């Protein structure tokens, strides 16, 4: 007998169909992986189960949970189910908790509401639950506020809220997407243990095939609101009978073709970083005292050759973005020097930096947030042109924008559109067009593909590889995702606690990591091949 049974579920918001005839089921103690790219309807399926859909949404079909017809349930019945029999964990731990309430209040609130327990009894249970998810009393008393916790710790609190009353079904919607790989592995372990402990059903929603493969007994693959394929995880992914499944699997392991041309150390280095340190002043503990300074980057030295592609990998908070900001001269080192094309850029004024800025550009993670929505593409892509020696005429400008758009695979006519008219992948192409328009020698890319779907991500990686070959641009990729590093870089630098702890050829470091930090990253990184192999072994 299934715990959750969805038959022929269709959903429309207004006149737009979102889900078409979804079928899936979850048994007690079972992990079902729901996989799909953005817009495939994964989250909407979850919100239908919770009946937390937007007002204009209309669902038809049958959703039965533990004998209850969810689609016909009243709001009161749903309130009794939510948080008691069905728990839910969300994607973004940084915003999932109420900033003005303590974690104790937030965990205890659901317990009090459902069990009518006294405050003291509910807090006692909340305490036990927080201990269980790895937030012990000594460091994480109930009186802590969310802003005092890191992303991974906050996600543990969200899991504690969802699992506090031992629900029969837990829905986890991209629970680890916003976390680095080491945290991801920890959170996934925690979820696995909670499922085993209380025979809870888990509906795990993810865009990441490797994550789902590691976790799920069965898998359902969605595309544009329809089920493409469903079945046993190992069989589905090892046989890859359905073309879309095959496409997803290939895209998630995609390695762009690159002819190796960059012999390290042959030419004069493009970028040299020597003994760079960055301290941030500590928090004021009283009016006259500060805590000791926080050392974000600690005596880092590195060098990059022209046209070389280097990955800077490390867990979140290891100082990699701070280092990148200093290389881009957006932040000043506390000590040490940075030379670009043989010239020192540390301590230079903005006017003196102009020629250097022309030759270094940046691509950010979020293709949604990095464009002004009220400007046309022409203006947005042309932004770095003000760095040129001579201001180009309007016609030259349009010519250069058209060329840049063409190079990133967009139509030059797109320049008269606004950013919202593009998909996520196209927008990332726009930010690459903006970065290459001044013909830079170095592009710093901060997690450039982690917000993208796997198939789009494969295309963007191809584009990076192509531009590297064609224009000889050197890349510094900042990422916690080792597949990106493996796909596109010659050399890798592993950063931990502000220091570079390991460096070498990408394949050598990733296949045979030496330092603790590198080992932790490699072991935690989800890998589809390894996950399938492990599953097959487990099942014998």
């Amino acid at each position, binding site marked *: 007998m299934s715990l959750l049974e969805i038959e022929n579920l269709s959903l429309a918001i207004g006149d737009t169909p979102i889900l078409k005839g979804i079928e899936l089921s979850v048994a007690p103690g079972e992990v079902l992986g729901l996989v799909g790219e953005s817009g495939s309807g994964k989250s909407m399926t979850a919100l239908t189960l*919770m009946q*937390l859909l937007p007002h204009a949404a209309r669902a038809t079909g049958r959703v039965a949970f533990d004998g209850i017809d969810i689609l016909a349930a009243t*709001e*009161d019945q749903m*309130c*009794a*189910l*939510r*948080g*008691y029999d069905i*728990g*839910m964990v*969300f994607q*973004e731990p940084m*915003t*999932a*908790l*109420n*900033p*003005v*309430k*303590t974690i104790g209040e*937030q965990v205890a*609130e*659901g317990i009090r*509401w*459902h069990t009518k327990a006294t405050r003291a009894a509910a807090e006692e249970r909340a305490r036990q639950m927080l201990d269980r998810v790895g937030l012990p009393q000594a460091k994480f008393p109930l009186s802590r*506020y969310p*802003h*005092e916790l890191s992303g991974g710790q906050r996600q543990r609190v*969200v899991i504690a*809220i*969802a699992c506090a009353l031992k629900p029969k079904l837990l829905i986890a919607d991209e629970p680890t997407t916003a976390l680095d790989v080491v945290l991801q592995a920890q959170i996934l372990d925690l979820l696995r243990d909670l499922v085993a402990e209380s025979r809870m059903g888990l509906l795990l929603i993810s865009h990441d095939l490797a994550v789902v493969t590691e976790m799920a007994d069965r898998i359902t693959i969605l595309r544009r609101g329809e089920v493409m394929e469903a079945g046993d995880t190992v069989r589905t992914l090892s046989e890859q009978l359905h073309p879309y499944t095959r496409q997803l699997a290939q895209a998630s392991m995609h390695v762009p073709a690159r002819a190796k041309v960059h012999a390290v150390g042959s030419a004069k280095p493009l970028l040299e970083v020597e003994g760079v340190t960055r301290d941030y002043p500590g*928090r*004021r503990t*009283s*009016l006259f005292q500060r805590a000791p300074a926080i050392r974000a980057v600690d005596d880092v030295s590195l060098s990059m050759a022209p046209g070389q592609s280097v990955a800077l990998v490390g867990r979140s908070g290891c100082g990699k973005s701070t280092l990148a900001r200093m290389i881009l001269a957006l932040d000043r080192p506390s000590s040490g020097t940075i030379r670009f094309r043989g010239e020192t850029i540390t301590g230079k004024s903005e006017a003196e930096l102009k020629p250097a800025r022309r030759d270094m550009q940046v691509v950010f993670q979020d293709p949604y947030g990095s464009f002004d929505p009220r400007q046309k593409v022409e203006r947005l892509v042309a932004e770095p042109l003000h760095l040129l020696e001579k201001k180009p005429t309007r016609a030259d400008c349009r010519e250069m924008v058209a060329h840049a758009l063409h190079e990133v695979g967009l139509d030059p006519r797109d320049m008269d559109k606004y950013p919202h008219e593009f998909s996520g992948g196209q927008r990332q192409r726009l930010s690459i067009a903006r970065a290459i328009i001044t013909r830079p020698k170095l592009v710093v890319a901060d997690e450039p593909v982690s917000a993208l779907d796997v198939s789009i991500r494969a295309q963007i990686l191809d584009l990076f590889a192509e531009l590297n070959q064609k224009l000889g641009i050197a890349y510094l990729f900042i990422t916690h995702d080792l597949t990106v590093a493996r796909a596109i870089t010659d050399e890798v630098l592993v950063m931990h606690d502000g220091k570079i702890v390991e460096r070498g050829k990408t394949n050598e470091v990733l296949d045979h990591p030496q330092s603790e930090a590198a080992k932790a990253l490699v072991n935690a990184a989800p890998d589809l091949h390894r996950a399938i192999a492990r599953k097959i072994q487990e099942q014998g």
Partner: protein
Amino acid sequence: MTAYLLKRLAISLATLLLASMVVFAVLEILPGDPARLMLGMNASADQVELLRNQMGLNAPMVWRYLHWVGGLLSLDFGRSYTYSVPVIDLVRERLAVSLPLALIALALSTIIAIPVGLFSASRRGRAGDTISMGAAQLGVAVPNFWFALMLIYVFAVWLRLVPAGGFPGWGAGAWQALKSLLLPAVALALPQAAILARVTRSALIEVLNEDYIRTARAKGLPYRTVLWRHALRNAMIPVLTILGLQFAFLLAGTIIIENVFYLPGLGRLVFQAITQRDLIVVESVVMLLVAAVIAVNLVVDLSYAVVDPRLRSRQ
């Protein structure tokens, strides 16, 4: 927390000091000689000069400023030119009317605005929202003196529930005094409440889109509980800001409203003092109002920290 408190306090004191300089300077520049006004048009130049010396008006400007500030600090506001009594006595008497009036109006506007904002936000786009926000729009648009006249017509002239104007004094009994403050307070509060309700609504709507609202609903809390427990407190920061800013307008509003209702309050005092060139009274009352506004905004700043724990741990 202590650092935050001290910093806010220091900023408030600096603002007060700056305001005192501005008030003093503006009144220095304004035309009109108080000594001439007191003695009348027929007085000789010698007599005026004598009085100017007696009043210290011929001393250097800096000295007079310091003297004035020193007086304010020791609650010696000087003597009124026209009434010939200590300004502090005048102010104390008038404050007994204006302070309760302002506080009642502030309380009323909050009590009206927050439930209306909550109601509107929870029914966003539906009839209840449209009606209450339409009413709020009207409340913002209608001038308070016209509204005051309408209130007098309905409640005093027609229904005869409250007096149409005047103030019997607190000696006549608290209930009688309060009754005569009721209509003016409502007239002052409603336009403020209208603005505040709109701010509350939009702040709530923004908060209701936050992820943590979804988390709270996923716990099984009913919508109404989520609104009160999770949304309202997070929406309070913009509401408090507007509340602090409105207090200054409330005080300015008392000048008009006290004239409409013949209330012997600070507003009327300052109005009369201006027409009679009683500069020392104007200076004192304006400084008092400035101090009140700064004090209210200090309280607002401190309540941010009460509402939002993130401000408490930052310096």
